């Protein structure tokens, strides 16, 4: 691995690497990272703040396991939407309170005619199907086909990992 983003110097990368599996659960987690990297706590906080400001860190937060919390039905709804209307309709669907992760993606014809992906979650599939009908109603005649793919197993969930060899 060569030529990393010029905006991310080796110290930033060491911070990414030290925090990508999670923050230490200790009173002063940034000091603990700083100690591990032999930098000062002030520098680690300042560099992480700069990465937040630049959007390299989207946020520092918890990701709950929605399945463990009872949201056991998780459907990736997919839609074949008129190209000319997808931006307008995608924004409306993305704004629905029960929709997460709403994206336009390329079709892969002939097998995959769908260009709009919207994740729907509920405590059971009946709830998810109700939400799916709401999306269908909103899309109206701009929609030419749809499907929903329920997740049956989480096979891996680690988030971004920088490779070691660089």
């Amino acid at each position, binding site marked *: 691995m060569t030529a990393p*983003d010029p905006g991310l110097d080796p110290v930033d990368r060491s911070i990414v690497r030290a925090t990508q599996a999670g923050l230490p659960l200790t*009173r002063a987690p940034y000091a603990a990272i700083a100690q591990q990297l032999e930098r000062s706590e002030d520098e680690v906080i300042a560099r992480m703040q700069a990465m937040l400001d630049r959007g390299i860190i989207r*946020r*520092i937060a918890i990701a*709950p396991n929605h399945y*463990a919390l009872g949201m056991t039905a998780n459907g990736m709804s997919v839609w074949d939407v008129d190209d000319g209307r997808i931006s307008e309709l995608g924004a409306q669907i993305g704004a629905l309170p029960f929709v997460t992760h709403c994206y336009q993606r390329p079709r892969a014809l002939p097998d995959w005619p769908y260009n709009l992906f919207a994740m729907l979650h509920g405590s059971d599939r009946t709830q998810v199907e109700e939400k799916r009908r709401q999306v269908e109603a909103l899309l109206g005649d701009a929609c030419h086909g749809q499907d929903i793919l329920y997740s049956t*197993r*989480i096979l891996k969930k680690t988030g971004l990992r920088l490779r070691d060899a660089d």
Partner: protein
Amino acid sequence: MSRPMRNVLPGDALDATDRAILNALQDGFPLTPAPFDEAGAQLGIDADDLIHRLIRLRELGAITRFGPFFDAAAMGGAFCLCAMAVPADRFDEVLTKVNAHPEVAHNYERTHKLNMWFVLATDDPDGIERTARAIEDETGLKVMLFPKLEEYFIGFRVQA
């Protein structure tokens, strides 16, 4: 390799404070010398209580991650949703090969002929193609790429 447990917690596993923690910390966590003190104060508990509850929530499997969420694209890399149609009798073998790649950030089994859906996250722009080709070589199966063209919502929030 991470293969999180897929168990629903019993209704009494979390108390009101645990739920308040899960809701509040989805929005953000302070970047300050004593962040647990600050976050705890907002929730009416002290830092030690918050830390102990987070350790327990993690052990219970109620939390999948706690820390910074990185944007691979902003780091000069890329994200891409990928899908494969894996024959049932090869599923475990292919899964092992796919998950062995550190670029595979998460992976879900789904109800479709395209039954394996994973996200590649790489810190260089060529990493997506390189990893997808490597997986194809190792498995003999096609990796379909579904890069995002436009994003209509950012964020993921569940009410605990």
